[in-house]
């Protein structure tokens, strides 16, 4: 079982040969959305292949802590999909697509029960039902949770289902582009690198599902994993798909700030859900000034901006954040409800949260924008190219509710898998143009022949620091312009990106290619942020501090004739029966 195997020798750096894999539905990414899509596609009889950049089971979904939002009404019987729908639209500051929010709120309930039937073990109510906890800006207690390890349980459960079904997967494969058939314009496959060996791979498929997650790594202080570099958004953009709401970046209010090596690491909202209190250096419970009604459980954008304002006003903690205290709940309760947080602070910061306060500050957490999709099928503007999860846009609008991402990935992962499988059954395998394959091989291998000396790891740091400095929580035109100028300099520098060493497990090579997509993602974010001359949800402009009804539009970013262009599209208005469900808080 564990006998040593012979490892193939490395590939020559100039080797242009590739292996070909053929399937009906190609799923890129194996977080919650990708796994759920693959299970659905497989169950509907499509020959499915999952390809993911990290090891199976390591995707960023694993980091989700607090819970999965669905209106089961187990703890608060008054809860319903209608209220969940309203909360989602209101939190999204009316930029969300109403139909996506409707589908989401309705289907999240069944997706949670389905996950339980797949084997996930949720915490229980005294009656033996799935327990639900309070979370910021949810009207009712709605987050089904598994301690503070909900994401881990979700991904492990789906991973087990994938393996039990025998769905083929290839982990540690980085895809580099999506191909389209020239005569029909349909998605026709993808190109990739087998990271372990350095061999090149051509994937031919009738449908491609992007489930590649977000791009939080373009920021210096982020809770996101290594692989969240926006490759999927870059690939979609290069394939001609429309992006939407790229200016909308969620700053989670509470990230660790000390020690420096772990800055940005998430402190789950569940700490506040379980009664955590935020105070400034004067010991004031400052949320009473900003949202006296909801206090610490206000919307994420409100809490993040409040913390930012306290720090800017000189009332920050000694480490440059604010204090978060849960110690009043007692050691037993904390260790039971927040075991990971207890371990995390003890291991990294020598702080015992059952006794001492935490120091926290906002950290980049989630991207509401991404690839524009059809609400029913999750199809992008490119035929037979689908997108689900954080890589897609439209559900969360200008701000995402905590816990909504885990239900998002299940609801739209399943829908993408279903639509892709059904549509793939009706068509023949599209062709991929040989010239395009050759061009992509040249592009992919170019870092080996680069004469420059740019270090991709260092460049990633430069990109991240530029975004942190110029495209932060509070933005203004001057900063954004400066960010754009720095981005142009970085783009020049990127021409000299250099892969050092051979092809097998060479991150200086794969990271070089990631840097190129990160630059594209950053440009789309900055240009959209410049465009939106108002403050709405996660997007705050100090030069346009008010929300402006004329900006009830989605900003679309698309590549035309090699140039990045933008279009404004009014947010579709919900039909009256849904409009009547929307209850503004204030």
């Amino acid at each position, binding site marked *: 079982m564990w006998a040593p*195997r012979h490892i193939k020798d490395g590939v020559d750096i100039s080797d242009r040969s590739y292996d070909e894999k053929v399937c009906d539905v190609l799923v890129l990414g194996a977080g919650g959305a990708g796994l759920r899509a693959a299970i659905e596609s497989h169950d509907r009889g499509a020959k499915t292949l999952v390809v993911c950049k990290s090891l199976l089971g390591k995707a960023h979904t694993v980091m989700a802590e607090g819970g999965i939002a669905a209106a089961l009404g187990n703890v608060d019987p008054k809860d319903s999909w209608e209220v969940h729908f309203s909360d989602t639209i209101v939190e999204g500051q009316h930029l969300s697509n109403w139909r996506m929010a409707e589908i989401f709120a309705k289907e999240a309930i069944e997706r949670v*029960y389905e996950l339980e039937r797949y084997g996930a073990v949720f915490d229980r109510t005294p009656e033996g039902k799935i327990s639900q906890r309070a979370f910021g800006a949810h009207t009712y207690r709605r987050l089904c949770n598994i301690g503070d390890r909900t994401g*881990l*349980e979700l991904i492990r459960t789906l991973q087990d289902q994938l393996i*039990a079904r025998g769905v083929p997967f290839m982990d540690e494969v980085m895809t580099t582009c999506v191909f389209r058939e020239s005569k029909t314009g349909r998605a026709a496959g993808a190109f990739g690198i087998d990271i372990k060996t350095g061999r090149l791979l051509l994937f031919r498929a009738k449908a491609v599902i992007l489930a590649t997650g977000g791009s939080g790594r373009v920021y210096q202080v982020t809770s996101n994993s290594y692989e969240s570099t926006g490759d999927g958004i870059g690939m979609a953009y290069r394939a001609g798909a429309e992006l939407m709401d790229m200016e909308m970046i969620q700053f989670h209010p509470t990230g660790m700030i000390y*020690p*420096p090596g772990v800055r940005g690491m998430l402190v789950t909202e569940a700490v506040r859900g379980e009664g955590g209190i935020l105070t400034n250096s004067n010991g004031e419970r400052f949320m009473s000034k900003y949202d006296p009604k909801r206090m610490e459980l206000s919307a994420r954008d409100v809490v993040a901006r409040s913390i930012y304002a306290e720090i800017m006003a000189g009332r920050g903690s000694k480490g440059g954040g604010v204090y978060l205290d849960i110690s009043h709940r007692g050691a037993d309760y904390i260790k039971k409800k927040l075991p990971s947080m207890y371990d995390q602070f003890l291991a990294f910061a020598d702080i015992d949260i059952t006794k001492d306060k935490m120091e926290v500050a906002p950290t980049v957490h989630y991207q509401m924008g991404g690839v524009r999709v059809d609400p029913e099928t999750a199809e992008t503007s490119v035929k037979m190219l689908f997108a689900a999860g954080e890589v897609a846009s439209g559900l969360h609008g200008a701000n995402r509710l905590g816990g909504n991402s885990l239900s998002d990935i299940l609801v739209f992962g399943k829908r993408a898998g279903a639509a892709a499988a059904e549509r793939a059954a009706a068509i023949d395998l599209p062709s991929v143009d040989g010239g395009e394959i050759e061009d992509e091989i040249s592009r992919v291998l170019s870092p080996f022949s680069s004469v420059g000396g740019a*270090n991709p790891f260092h460049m990633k740091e430069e990109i991240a620091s530029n975004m942190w400095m110029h495209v932060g929580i509070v933005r203004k035109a001057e900063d954004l312009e400066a960010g754009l100028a720095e981005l142009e300099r970085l783009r020049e520098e990127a021409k000299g990106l250099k892969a050092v060493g051979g092809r097998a497990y060479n991150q200086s090579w794969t990271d070089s290619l990631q840097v190129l997509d990160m630059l594209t993602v950053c440009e789309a974010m900055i240009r959209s942020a410049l465009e939106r001359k108002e403050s709405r949800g996660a997007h705050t402009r100090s030069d346009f501090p008010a929300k402006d009804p004329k900006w009830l539009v989605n900003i679309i970013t698309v590549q035309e004739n090699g140039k990045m262009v933008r279009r404004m599209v009014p947010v579709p208005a919900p039909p009256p029966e849904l409009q009547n469900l929307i209850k503004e808080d204030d």
Partner: protein
Amino acid sequence: MGVTGEESKEKKVVRLRIQRGAGSGTAPPRYDTFEVPREDGMVVLNAVHYIQSHLDPSLAVRWNCKAGRCGSCSAEINGRPQLMCKTRVDSIDGDITIEPMQAFPHLRDLVTDVTANWKVAAMIPPFTPKANAGDTFTFYQADVDRSREFRRCIECFLCMDVCHVVREHEADYIGPRWVVKAASLDMHPMDGLNRSKFMKDAGGLGFCNITKCCQEICPEHIVITDDAIIPEKERVVDRHYDPILWVYRRLRGRAKADETR
């Protein structure tokens, strides 16, 4: 060491010895030494990142969450299997030697090939709800708490690395991580399978001789041997080696039914 100048220099820099190269060849491994500026609260993975970014971009290291949650950055640090992202530099006196996990085929530098685990995962009879489970399950927090520990596993495979059966013998034993998986399914309140025959035969549970190394190094503090392996062994014994229960089951005619209960 011992010289004052050396000592103050020691405090400002971290010296790392890192195994380099590719393949599980027979030649002795090569080591490179790097000096990295020491930072407050620094973990080993931070130091490795500094090397990639400033000293040698060709250094290969697998990592992802940098928060002790994903289990990607497993390695042997001064000979002890640990997560690089969770090992504080200030917890180690002197130089830090980092080597890849030894139980798995070596790919390059600090990276090993752990894909054999997926083949083993596929062998384990999956979660199968009881026939009367219904569409929405009813069970209680006490049932949840019983298997919660096993569900903390982040699949870092450090327990597999430290297991001498997996590491040094070509035995057909699924290894500690996969016994924990089986235990988590066996203790699932709604699971209807009995995995003891699998554990006895294909699972090779008998190969474990309870040295408890796995539970000592688990970064999630899962008490692997005491809480998972021994109860699984007891289940096998009850089912297959207990003569009284064997006679009882024969008399009740339940021998067959029990396997698929």
